[in-house]
């Protein structure tokens, strides 16, 4: 029984934290109160559910409980009589309405977190806290700053939203094209953090990936004419389809060419390919669609040797032209190394800027060229560049071989 409660609570937390916070911000207009009451509701659930059993619809129970706690808090503090009245008249949560497209409060929260009047890092930090329910300590670790510093940054961001009058809304249709790219960027950062956690015992934080995919799906529904929104959704689906094959039983990273392709999630791949087809039909290609096309090349190759590396190289050539980031340039060198041999890859890598995975890529190319000593020292350098234990386990394995 106890285990059941904890399991259901963990699932509900992963799925519904963001929705609960988003709804409470809408009805109270107070970000801190919304977070605190959501937290209190989860704490209350642990006690009550153990005693009375798990409710039929856990999210509805949590929403009602969190809202009641907010009403109590506002009453106790004897502030905002207006707020109490409007809260009291708030109808019982209509789960169907909450789940459908535009009425999803998470979109309001997402667009508000991604407002261009906030710095890029503030947007990501606040989205991870409010939408994904990461703790301040976890976000501090991600950004490599002390926890009190991150706590101050989150307070500052919420203060600016409240005081500067950043509206809590999905922008009007006319503004969506200019506002969507910032949201896509934050969703992709959220997903990549889930996909390859920068620190900690697990390579993949599935809850973060799911949240990002879920939000991207809702967003793509809101802006059906934006091929990059569909492209991002496709990219995430195709990458996430490989999640369970990316680590071995001991939790070490398994590289793409050694993964068990039968373990890839076919349904997710099909869904990703369908999104991608919808996107490219608009004939306005962008960075997310190009990366999704690369992911599609991998996802549709029955065996590693069937991979169309020439096509991948040409996709990376296009990608470098629109998005010349270090990661893209390093990945292009990897593709060249597969299409035209390790020496060509090494030559391409020579001109790329530094990136955390660059030493590992260099090590692999040197190993394939038989330059064992140089490869070993590159693997050792690569080990200094990641705190993720799955990646470290893989690199240590290579070093021993």
């Amino acid at each position: 029984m106890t285990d059941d409660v904890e399991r259901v609570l963990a699932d509900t937390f992963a799925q519904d934290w963001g929705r609960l916070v988003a709804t409470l911000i809408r009805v109270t207009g107070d970000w801190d109160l919304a977070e605190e009451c959501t937290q209190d509701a989860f704490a209350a659930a642990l006690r009550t559910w153990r005693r009375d059993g798990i409710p039929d619809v856990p999210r509805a129970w949590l929403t009602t409980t969190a809202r009641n706690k907010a009403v109590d808090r506002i009453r106790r503090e004897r502030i905002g009589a207006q707020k109490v009245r409007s809260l009291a008249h708030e109808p019982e949560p209509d789960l169907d309405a909450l789940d459908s497209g535009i009425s999803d409060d998470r979109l309001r929260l997402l667009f508000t977190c991604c407002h261009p009047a906030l710095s890029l890092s503030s947007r990501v930090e606040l989205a991870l806290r409010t939408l994904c329910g990461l703790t301040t300590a976890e976000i501090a670790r991600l950004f490599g700053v002390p926890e009190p510093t991150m706590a101050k940054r989150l307070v500052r961001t919420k203060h600016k939203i409240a005081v500067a009058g950043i509206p809590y809304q999905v922008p009007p249709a006319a503004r969506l094209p200019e506002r969507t790219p910032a949201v896509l960027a934050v969703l992709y950062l959220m997903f990549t953090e889930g996909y390859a956690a920068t620190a900690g015992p697990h390579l993949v934080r599935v809850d973060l990936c799911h949240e990002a995919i879920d939000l991207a799906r809702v967003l793509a529904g809101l802006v059906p004419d934006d091929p990059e929104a569909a492209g991002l959704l496709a990219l995430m689906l195709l990458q996430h389809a490989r999640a369970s094959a990316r680590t071995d039983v001991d939790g070490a990273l398994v590289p793409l060419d050694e993964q068990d392709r039968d373990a890839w999630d076919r349904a997710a791949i099909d869904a990703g390919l369908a999104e991608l087809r919808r996107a490219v039909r608009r004939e306005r290609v962008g960075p997310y669609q190009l990366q999704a096309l690369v992911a599609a090349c991998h996802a549709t190759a029955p065996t590693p040797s069937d991979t169309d590396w020439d096509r991948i190289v040409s996709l990376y050539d296009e990608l470098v032209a629109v998005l010349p980031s270090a990661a893209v340039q390093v990945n292009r060198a990897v593709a060249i190394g597969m299409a035209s041999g390790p020496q060509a890859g090494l030559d391409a890598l020579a001109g790329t800027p530094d990136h955390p995975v660059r030493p590992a890529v260099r090590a692999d190319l040197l190993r394939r060229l038989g330059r064992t000593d140089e490869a070993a020292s590159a693997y050792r350098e690569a080990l200094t560049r990641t705190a993720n234990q799955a990646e470290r386990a893989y690199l240590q394995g290579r070093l021993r071989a």
Partner: protein
Amino acid sequence: MQYLLLISADEERAVTRLREAAAGSFDTWITDLEQRGVLRAHVGLHDSATATTVRLRDGEVLLTDGPFAEGREQVGGLAVVDCADLDEAVAIAAAHPAAAFGQVEVRPVRVS
């Protein structure tokens, strides 16, 4: 909500740039705001060389010839607008002719 718009630009070039801006673009900006009833105050300033900065230290009034912050970019005008939210204030700021070559800082006004 009320916002203060601090309109600033490179003083040396601002005069010419404003003259070069589409004829009447400044008047259009003001007229539009007045018609919408959002403009609470608006003032244009003489150049910063005419400024006097005042400080009280140990009971003594100290004067400095010039603006409190030296620099090429100087405040040339102020406006207070009353509008729905930051998005509307940003749209108003972006429509000011000086936004094209200088910048407009948008600050929420504190209400006591």
